[in-house]
């Protein structure tokens, strides 16, 4: 029985990543432990190349593998963010692993597989391919959370993430099977044709949809499915936390957008309230719970929960403008978080890592440049103009106001004020407290990343913002054009 070979070009970034990951695995196996740096840097280069491949081959909407896989401007936008963030955090991680003397070549390999899963996630056009991609990503993430297997905190983080992640996967599968049972297909295009805005849908589809929203909210750590985030972020090795807070988060939110808009866009009335509640709770918990944190990694965990809340405002709006605002927000968020974690990864005093907020005290006197860069990041996260964070929030709130969700925008602005308190508290610790132990010099990689991101955050409205706005607009149009 002869069959045509499916069109492989749209999936080129994923195929390339899979091949590179397996080749690097072989390289690592034969060269043993000292190959971590080589494997890590080659892996980062492969991630950059995969992002370039996505840009080069993915512009037009193409569906392949019998409707299981889709590439369009939206997928390309998300993939460039995800692969770029993975590459930068991987380079930072390799340096950190060397400093802590825990290098193993499996780390870059697992990051590559996780990135492969994330790429497949944002390109999924069917619940089947979505589930398999989600598991590829999650399994790799559970493993790198437990990477430092000799420390209790890291193994605890891995186990906790695994158990709760498996629960979320179960919720997702249950929801997907309900939708399959009541709507008759798992394919997003077929599902989208089956739903018409304003017409009644069967209760089974709505229940399934709610289960899927819960599972996706878990994956992007939105309240009330955020319980794992602070513990995992605190327990996992710091470079893993840096990776978790950018790439998987961006991929999960992009996936959330795709699943809600592509097949269920016409059911906006059914899922809008759920997403509004999730967004409001995330902003509140992210803002209030972060105030009492003394560990910087835990603080960043709550900060990321808050940011997910703001991003979800754009989804709750459910318009093209809203989706484009979420994508802009994600790009800004990645810049800020990568920079902040480059600084956190360099918090070494007296030969060991420190992670307390108090350890940053008086940094302006001991390391003035680093302190200035961190302060810039904090101002940006708080959303103070003209820094990048302001524009991220601006577009999201504007989309909400334009769509008439003024209450949601007001809650967003109020919680931003609360969040600004703890971001500015860090600035106060940096500049006005008595100096704590001096940090060791930052590694050159971290210097470069922190330097580039802090400059980017300051001049964001000049350089990447106009381009990001255009690209995000195209991506949002592609998602709605389907």
């Amino acid at each position, binding site marked *: 029985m002869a069959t045509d070979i499916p069109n492989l070009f749209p999936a080129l970034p994923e195929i390339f990543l899979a091949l590179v990951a397996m080749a690097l695995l072989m390289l690592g196996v034969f060269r043993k432990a000292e190959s971590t740096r080589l494997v890590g840097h080659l892996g980062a280069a492969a991630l950059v190349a995969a992002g370039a491949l996505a840009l080069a081959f993915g512009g037009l909407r193409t569906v392949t593998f019998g409707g299981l896989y889709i590439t369009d401007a939206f997928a390309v936008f998300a993939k460039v963010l995800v692969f770029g963030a993975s590459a930068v955090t991987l380079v930072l991680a390799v340096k950190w692993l060397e400093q802590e003397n825990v290098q193993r070549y499996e780390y870059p390999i697992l990051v590559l597989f996780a990135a492969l899963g994330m790429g497949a996630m944002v390109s999924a056009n069917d619940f089947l391919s979505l589930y*398999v991609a989600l598991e590829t990503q999650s399994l790799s993430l559970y493993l790198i959370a437990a990477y430092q297997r000799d420390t209790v905190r890291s193994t605890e983080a891995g186990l906790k993430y695994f158990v709760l992640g498996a629960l979320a996967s179960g919720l997702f599968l249950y929801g997907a099977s309900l939708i399959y049972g009541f709507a008759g297909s798992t394919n997003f295009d077929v599902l989208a044709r089956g739903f018409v805005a304003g017409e009644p849908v069967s209760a089974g589809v709505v229940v399934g949809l709610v289960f899927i929203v819960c599972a996706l909210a878990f994956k992007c750590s939105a309240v009330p499915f955020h319980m794992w985030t602070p513990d995992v972020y605190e327990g996992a090795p710091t470079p893993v936390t840096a990776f978790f807070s950018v790439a998987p988060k961006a991929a999960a939110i992009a996936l959330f957008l795709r699943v809600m808009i592509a097949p269920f866009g016409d059911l906006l009335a059914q899922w809008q309230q759920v997403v509004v509640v999730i967004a409001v709770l995330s902003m509140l918990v992210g803002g209030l719970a972060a105030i009492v944190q003394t560990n910087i990694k835990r603080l960043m965990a709550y900060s990321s929960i808050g940011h997910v809340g703001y991003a979800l405002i754009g989804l709750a709006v459910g318009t093209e403008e809203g989706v484009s605002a979420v994508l802009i927000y994600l790009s800004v968020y990645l810049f800020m978080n990568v920079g902040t974690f480059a600084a956190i990864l360099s918090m070494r005093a007296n030969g060991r890592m420190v992670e307390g907020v108090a350890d940053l005290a008086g940094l302006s006197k001991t390391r003035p440049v680093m302190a200035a860069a961190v302060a810039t990041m904090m101002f940006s996260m708080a959303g103070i103009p003209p820094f990048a964070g302001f524009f991220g929030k601006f577009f999201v709130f504007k989309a909400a106001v334009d769509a008439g969700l003024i209450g949601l925008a007001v809650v967003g602005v109020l919680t931003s004020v609360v969040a600004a308190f703890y971001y500015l508290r860090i600035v106060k610790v940096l500049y006005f407290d008595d100096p704590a132990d001096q940090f060791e010099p930052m590694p050159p990689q971290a210097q470069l990343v922190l330097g580039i991101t802090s400059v980017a955050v300051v001049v964001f409205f000049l350089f990447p913002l106009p381009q990001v706005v255009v690209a995000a607009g195209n991506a949002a149009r592609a998602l709605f054009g389907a």
Partner: protein
Amino acid sequence: MTALVFYVFAALTVASGAMVVTARNPVHSVLFLILTFFNVAGLFVLLGAEFVAMIMVIVYVGAVAVLFLFVVMMLDIHAVTLRQGVLKLFPVGSVVGLVLFAELTLVFGAWAWDPNFAQIASSPIPPVSELTNTEALGVVLYTKYVYLFQLSGIVLLVGMVGSIMLTHRLRQGVKRQNPLEQATRPIEECIEVKKVATGKGI
């Protein structure tokens, strides 16, 4: 004839299933479990589902049951002490069983079959005379679902890499046998010829 074979397999399945629960020695329980799996595989063959039968033998007997056997042998379980509370728990257990049975009866009693059920159920599959089950599965698995198949392969690879990463340790000071080194050792390193004078030691 088919009916006779069915009853033999069915009776053996139920009987060995009962033995799994009642055997005194946990190792015997696992062996009876394997017998149950074989009989179930026989039932599947009778249904014309030879692929499921093969999977039953390969996965359940070949992997799961052997794993059980390892666990049972390693954990040193005392079946007698485990079974001490049985009489006390028996009423509760039987109530749960009865409820489940009643529910199943209700489900089958109220089941409304689609009049075109037989046609719908067989429509995606070509007739058995043209294509066996295994071939039919292979045809869709490696064409229509090749993407999922490959991606699942990657999930398994990640699982393998991860379990090695989390458990493998390089121990120092372990004496490893290297057959190649042993075989290629020059004779002078291994044997020393000594002249031993009569009546004296070395």
